[in-house]
Structure formats: structure tokens, C-alpha cells
């Protein structure tokens, strides 16, 4: 064991992790928010802040709420180093969380321990690097495909990205609670059929639709809780 290892203090390590994590998170934040302005400068077209603000009210609030829930639930699983990295690199539910859980199980690390802190940081960092690498290689391979991607026959595909996503999500979420889906889906269909001019502001309608679904879910939850006593 070297001198340095003998003098190792886990508390000092954690403190430095928090310090470093905060700095890189703030830097990443500045870069990600700054990039659209830099790109806008390059292209000669700055973002329209008023439109971005309206968009934020419509769709951003949902994600803001879900990011609080994600934060509270996932941070304890990820530890200090792992959570800073995971919130910067994203893809939590579909990759980082199961990846860290898997590593933890393989190595038998108990949550809340120093060992877990090390294992989950190693796991999340590795996972992020693999994604960065795979995507970089993949994107390089995609460059020669650009002319194919722009073929007119393929354009309906790109115009259908959003409906295709919602089809997949409908299947995923409706099956979890089919009864809950009936009312918001019928209400929204009826609304858009009767007031087609609203179709151009669908994202605003997420709010009433979400409110209906959450209200019904809450009523159902209260009822089952009462029945259970």
C-alpha cells in the first residue's frame, strides 16, 4: 500500500466528488444551454425566446415534475459520483439504472456503502463512455447514408416520428392501466374533432389531458386505499 493510499479518507473523497460534480454539472449546463445560441450564431438565426418560453410551459413542466421524481428515487441508488454523471449523461431508466444495479449485484456491493459508491461510479462512467463511443461510430457510418435519408419517398417516415413514438408509448402505458386511458383519450379525441383549430396547439392540451388522467388515478388510488382500510 502506498503512502497516499494509507492517508486516504473516504470523507475527503466524497467532498471532492461533490465539488467536482457540481463544477462539471454547471459547466455542462452552460454548454448545453449555450449551444443553441452558438449554433444560432453560426446559422444566423437566434432562438425565439418567447416561443421557447411558451413551449416550456406546455411541455417543460411535465419533464420538470418527472425530473424531481427521478432525482429523489434514483440518487440513493447511484451514490454521489454516479448521480452527477447519470444526470449529465441521461438515459437513466433505459440504461444507467439497470446497468448500475447489475454491477452492484455482480459485485455484491451494499447500497449506502463506500464500496457501492465506487462500483456505481465505475459502472455509470463506463456505461456513458460506451454510449458515447457507439454513437460516435454509428454517426460516422451514417454520414454516407445522408443522401438515402433525404430521398423524397422516405420523408413521410420523418414526418411520422412523433406519432410513431406515441404509438409505442400508448402500448407501453395504456396496458398498465387501460381503464384510466379511456376517459382522457375519448375526451381529447372529442375535443379535437369539435374544435379542430386546437390541433395546432396540441402541446398545450397535454396539461388538461394530464390533469384528467392524474385526477382519475388519484381518485382510484384513494378508493383502493380506503377499501384496504
Amino acid at each position: 500500500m502506498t503512502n497516499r493510499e494509507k492517508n486516504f479518507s473516504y470523507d475527503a473523497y466524497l467532498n471532492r466528488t461533490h465539488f467536482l460534480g457540481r463544477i462539471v454539472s454547471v459547466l455542462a449546463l452552460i454548454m448545453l444551454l449555450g449551444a443553441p445560441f452558438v449554433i444560432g450564431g453560426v446559422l444566423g438565426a437566434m432562438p425565439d425566446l418567447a416561443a421557447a418560453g411558451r413551449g416550456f410551459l406546455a411541455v417543460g413542466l411535465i419533464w420538470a415534475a418527472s425530473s424531481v421524481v427521478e432525482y429523489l428515487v434514483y440518487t440513493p441508488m447511484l451514490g454521489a459520483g454516479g448521480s452527477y454523471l447519470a444526470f449529465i449523461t441521461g438515459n437513466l431508466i433505459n440504461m444507467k439504472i439497470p446497468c448500475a444495479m447489475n454491477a452492484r449485484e455482480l459485485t455484491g456491493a451494499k447500497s449506502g456503502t463506500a464500496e457501492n459508491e465506487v462500483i456505481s461510479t465505475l459502472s455509470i462512467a463506463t456505461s456513458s463512455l460506451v454510449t458515447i463511443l457507439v454513437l460516435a461510430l454509428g454517426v460516422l457510418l451514417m454520414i454516407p447514408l445522408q443522401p438515402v435519408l433525404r430521398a423524397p419517398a422516405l420523408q413521410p417516415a420523418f414526418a411520422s416520428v412523433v406519432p410513431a413514438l406515441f404509438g409505442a408509448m400508448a402500448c407501453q402505458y395504456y396496458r398498465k392501466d387501460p381503464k384510466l386511458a379511456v376517459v382522457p383519450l375519448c375526451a381529447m379525441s372529442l375535443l379535437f374533432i369539435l374544435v379542430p383549430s386546437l390541433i395546432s396547439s396540441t402541446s398545450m392540451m397535454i396539461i388538461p389531458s394530464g390533469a384528467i388522467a392524474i385526477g382519475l388515478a388519484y381518485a382510484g388510488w384513494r378508493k383502493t386505499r380506503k377499501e384496504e382500510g
Partner: protein
Amino acid sequence: MDSGVLNRLNGGAIWLVCGTIVAFIAVVCVVFMVRAWRAGKALGMDPVKMRRAVTSSATFSILPSLGILLGVLALSGSLGTPWPWLRLSVIGALHYETVVAEGAAEQVGVKLGTESMTVEAFATIALLMSACIVGGMILAVFFNKRYLRKLQGRNPAASGKSSGGFGDRAMIAMFIGLVSAYIGSYIGGFVSQKPSPDAAGEYVSARFSFLGDWTPLVAVAASAAAMGVFIWLKEKKGLDWVENFAVAGSMLVGMAAAVLVRL
């Protein structure tokens, strides 16, 4: 899509901006990894165990990463390649990016993947995509230290589950509401719109005309069916790995269906 706009969104300068950020984050990952490795050694952890954590995480991440790559492909037709590459490399998730991009596009009056896209619209969409996802990072900056101190020594599996758990249901309900609003709008569009006499590809209100665009409904149905197959393969056939491709794969099926019906 106006290929001039797409050319500009695929320009070298955009690659440089996005590449710099991806490179920065890659360096951050390496730094955290090296620090954790050294800390593990200093704590007397078995290097074999640590190596196992690294190799298992690397192999575990390959398939989901390929799924994410398909997501880049799906978005590249409307937003160019570099921006979706950045977003999906380092922070986003496909469903998040797509929903926010669509919401932002609506605010600036364009539709993703159509001729209406402009560079002005792109800048606004990109900003909103960045702004909507920073919640986790901001919370981590302000609360991580205190939150984790509080939890130290406690088992999160035991304390993290609140009794009764309305949180989970609220999340499911929120997504059901989100999906319903959009699918409702496609149904409304088909029933109560008709092609605009002035502009090709545009639609105007026409209550109960049944002349609206039905391509989105085809895409919804095809991708929902594909997702059903993915879920069946996972749950009934025990093929857990298919889950990595479920969302992106279903989307590509839906997109392919839209191409077929418009041929």
C-alpha cells in the same frame, strides 16, 4: 424537408459545437472513473471486483446504445445529425427529445420532418430541448450533498418505497394523459380537417369531413403493434434483450408504415 436547411443543420460548425460538448463529457467520465478506481484501491477493494463492474457495465451498455443510435437516425431527418447525436449521447432519452422537439416545433409554427422547418425554428427547438431536461442536473448541484448525507447508511430500497406509492401511478397517469392528447389530435385531424386548397401538404379545419391526414394514425397503430410484439417477446419468450430496442424499434416500424402507405 428543404434539403438546404438540412444541409446547414449538418454543417461542419454544428458538428464542431456538438462534438466539443460530447468530448468534454467523455473526459468528465474518464476523470470520475479514474478517481473511483483509485478510491476503490485505497479502500482495499478487490481489483477483480472493480474490473468486473467495468466489463459488465460495458457489455451491458452496448445493446441499449445501439437502440439509442436508432433514435439518432429517427430524429436526423428533421433536426440534422449532429444535434440529435449530442442530445442522445450525453443527456437525453429518445422519448423525451421527440416530445419536446414536437412541442417546440408547434410553438414556432413548423412541423418536424416537413418542408416547413427553418433554421430559426431549429435554434428555438434546440434551446427548448436543452432547457427542459436540466432539472436533474440542477437538483444534483444544489441537493446531492445534503440528500446523500441524509441517506448515508440507510437502505434506499427500504426507505425509497413510500407506502401505497401514488408517485408511480401519477407518473403512469401523466404519460397516459400526454399520449392521449396527441393521439386525440391525430383522430381529430383525420375527422375534422381536409387538405388546404392553397398549400400542398397543409390541412385546414373542416368538421366531420373525414378528409384529414390519416398517416399519423397508421404510424400510431403500426408502432403500437410493434411494441406489443416486443413486449410479448420479452414477457412470454423471455427475450430480455429485446427491451433495448423496443422504443426505437417500434418507432422505426411506425415510420416505415408511414412510408408504405404514402408510396
